[in-house]
């Protein structure tokens, strides 16, 4: 016991002396496993590149856990300087004006160069206020893409190099795959909320909610129970009944990846950050990568997809020197080499155009076919009001509701229209609660 205490005392003394030399910048994040190691490597490289600041990354668990921990810490006056918040928490962070030090302001105050135009526009659009100012630094952004099993395609008599482009083709291909016995199911999907509802709406230029999908303020309402979404949900239900579609579970849909890896399902849709996992797990088959499908009777050319993942928020209440360090660190993070390295290692999007260009120069995309599908998909065309993203308060809970209603649909309790209507109605109640809590 005594030994432990004295060890602790030494540790405290050591950290105290080191903080005399360098200002500490704490960074709470939600990256576990390999991603966490890579993140720590980035922080360490920054620390070695200079001697004035020391970035200390702390793993805080899942995204919701990290957000809640940061909020609790803020209330207790123990907040970190930087916290990684997933895109669903954006509405919550934006409403908390007193807690957040906007990134555009921080960079200007500290005289660090920060040009919004160098960033990928669909990414920055998501995290900007209505005036176009970036409030948090994009770090790990992803977008959903389609993964398919080339071997199963071949077995079913399909061309393994041709992925289905439209939902009609997805249906036809799946039917062929199942009826030929090449696989037990045609398609599955992770993230029913994010991929099959939010991104579906964006791709077809249909609103998810009023006031520019919530970007215009807290008075917005959900409108994702339109004819397109109803049609798509009804299709998924119909395909489930025919055995073409298999449900992968709520939230991230853990079962979807398993069913794809075990070759039970031939097609899956998931985050581009799932690419490394697919490559590692597809030992006995060749995976193919493709953009998300669309309905060609709804839109001729699909719009850009929207992002997921997380950004880095700066919290108020720290000393001036700490913010200087944060600004320096953010400049470092935005460097093309740092960004390209992170993007190629993880499958997250490159945040800046320069990082993408660097990858091209390095020949990364040529060597790894399919690795640039996510970037091409998210940068195609000009983002419209409906395709620049979604931003709502209480959105974590809203996603849970959408999952629940989708389950009710698949369990035959409601039809597509009823379940979407109910999701919109229950979601709007949460929006009104958020509005009430954030307008006084």
């Amino acid at each position, binding site marked *: 016991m005594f030994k432990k205490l004295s060890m602790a005392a030494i540790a405290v003394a050591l950290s105290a002396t080191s903080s005399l030399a360098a200002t500490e910048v704490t960074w709470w994040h939600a990256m576990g496993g390999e991603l966490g190691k890579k993140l720590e490597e980035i922080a360490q490289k920054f620390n070695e590149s200079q001697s004035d600041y020391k970035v200390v990354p702390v793993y805080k668990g899942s995204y919701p856990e990290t957000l809640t921990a940061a909020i609790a810490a*803020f209330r207790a006056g123990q907040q970190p300087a930087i916290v990684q918040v997933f895109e669903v928490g954006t509405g919550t962070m934006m409403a908390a004006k007193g807690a957040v030090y906007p990134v555009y302001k921080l960079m200007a105050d500290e005289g660090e160069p920060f040009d919004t135009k160098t960033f990928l526009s669909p990414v920055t659009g998501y995290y900007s206020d209505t005036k176009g100012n970036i409030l948090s630094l994009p770090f790990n952004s992803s977008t959903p893409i389609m993964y398919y099993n080339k071997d199963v395609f071949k077995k079913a008599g399909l061309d393994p190099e041709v992925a289905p482009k439209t939902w009609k083709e997805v249906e036809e291909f799946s039917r062929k795959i199942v009826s030929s016995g090449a696989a037990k199911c045609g398609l599955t999907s992770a993230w029913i909320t994010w991929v099959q509802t939010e991104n579906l709406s964006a791709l077809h230029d249909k609103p998810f909610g009023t006031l520019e999908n919530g970007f215009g303020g807290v008075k917005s309402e959900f409108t994702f129970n339109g004819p397109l979404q109803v049609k798509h949900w009804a299709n998924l239900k119909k395909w489930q009944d025919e055995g073409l579609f298999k449900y992968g579970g709520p939230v991230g849909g853990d*079962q979807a990846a398993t069913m794809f890896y*075990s070759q039970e399902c031939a097609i899956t849709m998931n985050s581009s950050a799932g690419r490394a996992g697919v490559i590692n797990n597809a030992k006995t088959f060749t995976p193919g990568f493709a953009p998300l499908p669309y309905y060609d009777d709804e839109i001729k050319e699909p719009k850009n997809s929207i992002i997921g993942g997380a950004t880095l928020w700066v919290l108020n209440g720290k000393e001036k020197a700490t913010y200087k360090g944060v600004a320096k660190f953010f400049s470092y993070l935005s460097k093309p080499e740092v960004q390209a390295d992170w993007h190629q290692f993880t499958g997250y999007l490159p945040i800046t155009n320069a990082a993408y260009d660097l990858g091209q120069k390095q020949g990364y995309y040529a060597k790894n076919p399919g690795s640039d599908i996510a970037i091409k998909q998210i940068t195609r065309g000009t983002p419209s009001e409906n395709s620049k993203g979604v931003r709502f308060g209480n959105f974590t809970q809203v996603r849970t509701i959408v999952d629940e209603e989708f389950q009710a649909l*698949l369990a035959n309790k409601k039809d597509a229209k009823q379940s979407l209507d109910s999701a919109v109605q229950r979601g709007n109640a949460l929006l009104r609660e958020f509005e009430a809590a954030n307008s006084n």
Partner: protein
Amino acid sequence: MDTKRTTFNNRLLPYLLLAPQLAITLVFFIWPAAQAVKSSFEREDPFGFSTVFVGLTHYRRLFEDPNYLDALWRTAVFAVSVTILSMMLGLAFAAAVDRLARSAKIYTTLLVWPYAVAPVVAGVLWWFLFNTSTGLLPFFLERIGIRWDHDLNGTHAMILIIIAAAWKQISYNFLFFLAGLQSVPQSLIEAAAIDGSGPVRRFFTISLPLLSPTTFFLFIINVNYTMFDTFPIVDATTGGGPAQATTTLVYKVYQDGYVGLNIGSSSAQSVLLMLIVMLLTFVQFRFVERRVQY
């Protein structure tokens, strides 16, 4: 029964001896409970910049919310099923082990094992066993014509958490029942045996009635267990789904308060949960305890 009484002359000493326990109760129970009551009357943004007194709004909303009323009913089903299942199996195992002359210790050790397992590990374990695409049990169930799917079938999901929660609690009940059975006077059993009654009859007419204090104690403990301690099991197996089919009251507190950051409503739910358990315990002591023989 004669008691040995030790008399303390110092008037302050008893208070001093009680003080640590009282302090702990105050800091870790009374204070947080009072905080919960306070914040159940308030509406607050997550960061705590503005707090508005809203009176009984949260409580009124809860009783108008069909999801909350469903969770209430669901919790009742869950609590009753887990309590009955784990107590009956605990008693059955205890009776079986009690009859063993040899190797009783080995069985006791094996049966107590699950209690040492953390609830979340128990949850993950059953989640693996019942996993729809890789689990062992759905594979066998399919052979007898049952398509197991707790991802979509609410009843299946409920059965899953009942089994997982009961499995963990059987050990505890087993230990107490075994101790109770072993304190049944041997002379009574022998007398009954000489009178010609068989083991089953002896169990139901002698052992079981004498176990009533144990049963009563376990009943209260088990209900409390299902109300509060089963949270990790739900979280690790079903996450409250599908479509809230396994969202019990305590899980809803977590969902709304921790994940949803709706502190006011979540506090109101904790207060209600606390009241429900207090009421249940009161009813049990007031009415059930009278029938218990000591």
